[in-house]
């Protein structure tokens, strides 16, 4: 009976020790250090910067970028929090917040490019419409101007011809 109990106790001790080792080692294996956190923040900075550039281009083209700006704003908040965590030495937290920032702006370039293309198309349509309108207006002005001039010339000549010369002393 006794060797069995001893065996069981040995197994239990082994299990506890190995569990403690796992608990101690695993977080250290997956821990994020300052270099990694800095790298993640640097990447987030670059992602946010390039997202801003494409949104800016879409905005300059006349697109409504309100939704994209909200996304940029929330990504910016994540980045601020990532810096706070980095300064506090919470590298894991800083890294995940930076990743959250990068994730928030993922796909923004495609959306901005689509909005930009739509805005440019709408702009060229508008330009075409106004240029067409102006062209039609100019033709009308030319036609009416020509007839108007003829009418004016005739009216003026008639007015001059209808004038009766007044002789002095006839009053």
């Amino acid at each position, binding site marked *: 009976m006794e060797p069995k109990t001893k065996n069981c106790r040995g197994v239990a001790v082994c299990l506890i020790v190995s569990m403690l080792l796992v608990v101690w080692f695993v977080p250290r294996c997956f821990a994020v250090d300052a270099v990694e956190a800095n790298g993640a923040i640097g990447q987030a900075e670059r992602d946010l910067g390039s997202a*801003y550039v494409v949104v800016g281009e879409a905005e300059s083209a006349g697109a409504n970028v309100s939704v994209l700006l909200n996304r940029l704003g929330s990504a910016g908040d994540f980045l601020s*929090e990532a810096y706070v965590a980095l300064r506090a030495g919470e590298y894991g937290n800083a890294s995940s917040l930076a990743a959250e920032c990068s994730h928030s702006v993922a796909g923004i370039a495609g959306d901005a490019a689509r909005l930009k293309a739509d805005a440019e198309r709408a702009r060229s349509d508008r330009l075409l419409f106004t240029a067409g309108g*102006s062209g039609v207006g*100019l033709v009308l002005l030319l036609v009416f101007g020509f007839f108007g001039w003829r009418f004016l010339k005739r009216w003026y000549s008639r007015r001059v011809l209808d004038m009766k010369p007044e002789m002095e002393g006839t009053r």
Partner: protein
Amino acid sequence: MNFENVKLVYVFSCVALCLVILSPTLASVVTFPEGEKFSELWVLGPNRMAEGYPFNVSAGEVYKVYLGVGNHMGDLGYYRVYVKFRNQSEPLPNSTAGVPSSLEPVFEYNVFLRNNETWERELSFSFEGVSFEGNVSRVSKVLVDGYAVDVDKIAVWDETNNVFYYQLFFELWIYNATVSGFQFHDRWVGFWLNMSRQL
């Protein structure tokens, strides 16, 4: 009115009408000169007025101010406002030379603004780990919007004004797409604080 004058009036009327008809097309093709490009940075007191800024502060109390940024640069702007904390002897930014303060920020705000848009938000701050020893006071932690940052600043008693001077100030930086980074935008604001013992 003689015939030559009538002709002149008619030609001028036609030219004016022509310009009116062409104006929508010209407006979308011709770019007009823009006004002055600038950005704004301001800080307001707790009542959203340029008065009543916190001055006598102590540990554990929460103080609030309003921080604002305005964009008049002509297009979408990406701003960063660095919140910095200093004692009387530490460097301030130099707007004339375009040099920011070399101090590490305690917090930063990332702001995206369209042209002629403004951003304003409430900023709360407090202090932790404040101690006094003789003519020296020490601040270990500053909390901005609830985020704690270790600062470990020491201020020496100012005998002339009977205060322990500290300053909370804000620097405006702007993203430059050409260099893919932020540049100091030559603007900063701040206010003085007197660290006092808790009553």
